C-alpha cells in the first residue's frame, strides 16, 4: 500500500491560487468520460518522462472532475472541492516520476494523493490556528517494495473489481460510501431511516464477505 509516512501528520499546504470554480459559471470544462487503465498508465509515463502537458491534460480531464466529485461527496462545498482537485492534480504533476505501476494503478495512486490532501484540509479546518510548514509529499519516498509482496497492480485492481461485483449491490454500496467518511454514513443512515450503528454493522458484514471473496480469488 502507498506509505502514509509523509502524510500521516503532514504539514499544511497553503493555497495561493484561488481557482476559478468559486464563481458560478455555466461554462464548464468538458469532462473526459472514459480512460482505460492502460491508457492512464501510458499518459502517466508521458507526464513523468517527457513532462508532456497534453498527456497530463488528458489525465486532468478525466480525474479532475472525479476528484472534485469525491471531495463534494466527502462534504466539501463545490468551491473547496475544485480547489482540492487542483491541488491533487498539481501533486500528480509534481510527483509523476514517483508513480510506480507495479505498486498501484493510476486511479489508486491518485486516490491516495486526494485522500491525503483531504486529511490535510480537514486538519486545517479543525485547527486553523496551528501554523505549520508547507506540505510536500515528495519529501519522503515510499519505502521500496520487497519480493513476493508485489502483486502487479492491474491484477489487484481487477481482483478488487471482481470482488466488489460479487457483493450484493447494497454491500458494495456501503463499502464504497465508507470512503467518503462518517458524514456520508450519517447521511445514509438518515436516508434509509436506520441508526448509524446499523450502517456500521452493515459495513462490517460487507467487509467479512469481501474478505472471503478476496481470499478465494487469490
Amino acid at each position, binding site marked *: 500500500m502507498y506509505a502514509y509516512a509523509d502524510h500521516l501528520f503532514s504539514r499544511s499546504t497553503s493555497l495561493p491560487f484561488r481557482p476559478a470554480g468559486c464563481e458560478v459559471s455555466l461554462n464548464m470544462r468538458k469532462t473526459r468520460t472514459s480512460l482505460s487503465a492502460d491508457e492512464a498508465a501510458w499518459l502517466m509515463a508521458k507526464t513523468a518522462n517527457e513532462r508532456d502537458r497534453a498527456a497530463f491534460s488528458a489525465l486532468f480531464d478525466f480525474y*479532475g472532475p472525479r476528484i472534485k466529485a469525491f471531495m463534494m461527496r466527502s462534504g466539501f462545498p463545490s468551491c473547496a472541492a475544485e480547489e482540492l482537485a487542483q491541488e491533487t492534480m498539481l501533486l500528480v504533476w509534481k510527483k509523476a516520476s514517483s508513480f510506480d505501476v507495479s505498486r498501484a494503478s493510476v486511479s489508486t495512486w491518485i486516490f491516495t494523493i486526494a485522500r491525503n490532501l483531504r486529511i490535510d484540509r480537514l486538519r486545517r479546518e479543525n485547527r486553523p490556528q496551528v501554523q505549520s510548514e508547507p506540505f510536500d509529499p515528495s519529501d519522503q519516498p515510499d519505502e521500496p517494495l520487497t519480493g513476493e509482496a508485489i502483486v502487479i497492480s492491474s491484477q489487484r485492481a481487477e481482483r478488487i473489481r471482481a470482488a466488489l461485483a460479487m457483493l450484493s449491490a447494497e454491500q458494495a454500496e456501503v463499502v464504497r460510501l465508507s470512503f467518503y467518511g462518517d458524514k456520508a454514513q450519517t447521511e445514509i443512515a438518515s436516508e434509509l431511516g436506520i441508526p448509524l450503528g446499523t450502517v456500521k454493522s452493515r459495513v462490517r458484514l460487507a467487509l467479512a464477505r469481501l474478505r472471503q471473496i478476496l481470499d478465494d480469488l487469490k
Partner: protein
Amino acid sequence: MTINHHPSDETLLRYASGTLEPGPRVVVAVHVSGCRACEDRGADFEAIGGSVLEDIEAVELSASALDHMMVRIDAMSGKDSARTVGRKPARAEIGIRLPDVLDNCDVGGWRWIGPGIRFSRVTLPGEPEANVMLLKVAPGRKLPKHTHSGREYMQVLSGSFADARGRYRPGDMDEADSKVEHQPIVDPQAECICIAALEGQMRLRGFFGRIIQPFIG
C-alpha cells in the same frame, strides 16, 4: 516474527480510506509498516478507493480549470530547490528505537503514573490533541481492569502481555472497543513497551484518562 493480532478490516478500511482519526491512524501505520499481510490488505482497500474514484459521477470543473492548472505548474517550476527543511522533532531519550513512521513526532520523557507503569506522550505535528502515548509496564505487572469509552489501539513494540483474548507480542496490535473489558498482564521476562491511542480528542476518560488526567488536566 509471526504476527497474530491485526487491526480489524473495518479499521484497515478506515485507514486506507483516510477516515481514521489521527491518533489511531498513527498506531495502525506502525502496525502496517511491520506487517506484510496488513500492508497487502491495505493496498486492496486503496484499490477500492481507486475504483470509487473511477466510477464516481463526475462533477464538471470550471471552464478555466486547466488554464489555472498550467499557470500553477509554470509558477512551480524552478521552485523545487527551495524546499523547506522540516522542523526537527523534540525527542526524549526513551531507551528504544521507535518505528520510522514516528520520525516527525515529538516524544516526551518517561513519566511515572503508577507502580511499574510509565508513559511518554507522543505529539503528532499539527495534531496536538491526538491521544497517542507510549506505555512502559514492568515485567509481571498487572494493569488495572478497565473498559474504554472509545476504541483503544495498542501496538506492542517490545516485550509482551496477555489477557483473556491471547498473548500480544512485538508487531501485534490490540484493538479493543468499548465492549471489551480486559486486564492485560505483562509477561514476566521483560518490561513491555506499547504505542497506544484512544479514539476521540481530549476525551480522556476510561483507563488512560484516569491514569493520565492528573498530569495533563
